[in-house]
């Protein structure tokens, strides 16, 4: 397979209907819609982007949207893709990619736990880290960690001084 550069990759993805932007010589970001992003990820996997480094969420509360970010890297082309999918905050449901990468199981569990995003098709979305948790998923912007800590653990700003 020929070595793909950032520019040719961006052109290729644009022809498939994906908008992208260059971040650096070895890194681009791509915006995909929630309807067909799995196909795009599958395509990327077939052209050599086989390393899924991480899946993480971002809470854009001002725009009332969640973003799920897939960090994908290719060992051959040495390009990193920040693959972004936006979903509405009221109904945070997205398709799973466990079929493409096995380790996605645990990343999705983590994102579900911290953002409350549901991954359709993922069989096990149980909590990995938190126990006895009945509050908002903690990494959402409308969850106030300081207030939570103050109420449950009795924490004080500046250690209670001043």
């Amino acid at each position, binding site marked *: 397979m020929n070595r793909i550069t950032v520019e040719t990759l961006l052109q290729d993805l644009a022809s498939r209907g994906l908008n992208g932007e260059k*971040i*650096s010589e*070895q*890194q681009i*970001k791509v915006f995909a819609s929630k309807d067909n992003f799995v196909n795009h990820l599958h395509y990327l996997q077939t052209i050599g982007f*086989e*390393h*899924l*480094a*991480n899946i*993480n969420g*971002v*809470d854009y509360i001002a725009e009332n949207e969640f973003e799920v*970010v897939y*960090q994908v890297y290719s*060992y051959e082309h*040495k390009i*990193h893709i*920040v693959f972004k999918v936006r979903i509405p905050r009221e109904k945070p449901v997205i398709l799973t990619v466990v079929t493409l*990468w*096995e*380790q996605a*199981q*645990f*990343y999705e569990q983590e994102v579900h736990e*911290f953002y409350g995003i549901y991954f359709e098709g993922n069989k096990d979305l149980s*909590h*990995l*880290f*938190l*126990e006895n948790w009945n509050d908002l998923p*903690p*990494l959402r912007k409308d*969850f106030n*960690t*300081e207030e939570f800590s103050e109420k449950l653990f009795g924490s004080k700003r500046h250690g209670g001084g001043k």
Partner: protein
Amino acid sequence: MNFNSYSLTKIAKEDKDTTYDLFFGPNHPGMHGNFGYVLDMVGTEINSVRPNAGQLHRGFEKLMEQRGWVQNLTLVPRICVMDPDPNEVAYCMSVERIMGVEIPERAKYLRTITLEMSRLTAYLLAIGGFGGTLGHYTPTHWSTADRDLIMDMFEWLTGGRVYHIYNIPGGVRSDAPEGFFDKLLEVMDALEARLPDYDSILFENPIVHKRLKGLGYVSKEDARKTGLSGPNLRASGNAYDVRKDVPYAAYPYLDFEIITQEGGDALTRALQIRLEYEQTINLIRQAVKKIPEGDVRLNLGLLGNLKVQAGEAYEKVESSKGEFGYYIVSDGGTKPYRVSVRGPSLPAGFLWAQKHLPTMKIDDVAAWMGSLSICPPDFDK
């Protein structure tokens, strides 16, 4: 002589009542860190495994959104206590990428030196870990004492023994003190002179070979697909190293080859650490030799009020466990909008645990875990 073929446990496997749950960790001497596996056992054989994580969860990613850009530097090294500097460097690199600044050459070399020193401490601990999990405490005692030589150098350079917070956005905090590099080279000589001892007591020990050979095999393709990284990936025959592929700091100026091996089992991973240990000493020597004069940090104004323009970046660093990545989103304020950390241990700690452990007996769990250099805090965060 195959004990398995006629063991009672084989018969018992069909009987539902003979299985029991065994808590391997968190309170277990063989466990690396505060983490655990709940093993579903038949006799001494493992049926299935459930990772029991969350004991180390501190909500780093949330806390980083509450604190200023530079304040966060106190948090990031605590994500991996054995090898803290890659976290600082990856965080700083991401911030610098968003700000679009290039750090001075001397700072790049100083970063490289701290990164490699940190890698050495982690490898020395890993050598001790191999000893400890196999019940061989002599190398553990030796290597932990040898690690202290580097800890003292760190203390001299940065003021901290374990957490250094030496790298800051825009370079490093201060220049190296006078005489530091000469002493560092002496320490490197001392550490290299110890290698034959480790070889004879650990890496060439016939019983170590017997215990580790064939344990936890990962094939070349599986290692690439499941997100393993670092020494684990290279021990399976993949020539991938962030230092070479996505060069950062002063690595483009240094002369080194990616070390790969074909074995893919625990023994190969142990030898991989031993080989890379030698390479790291060599890299530090090169960096010390080539380090240019000049500034060690950019003037970014008052760091306490640092503002980073809106943007995002994912930067990765090769740590002793594998690829550490920091994905940072900035909205132009005095605090990050989102910091997401990619720890290298998750694929090994969760996915490969579920693949490997059910083929093992209880004897091998600790050694297997040590061989994949699983560091729980980096996925527990």
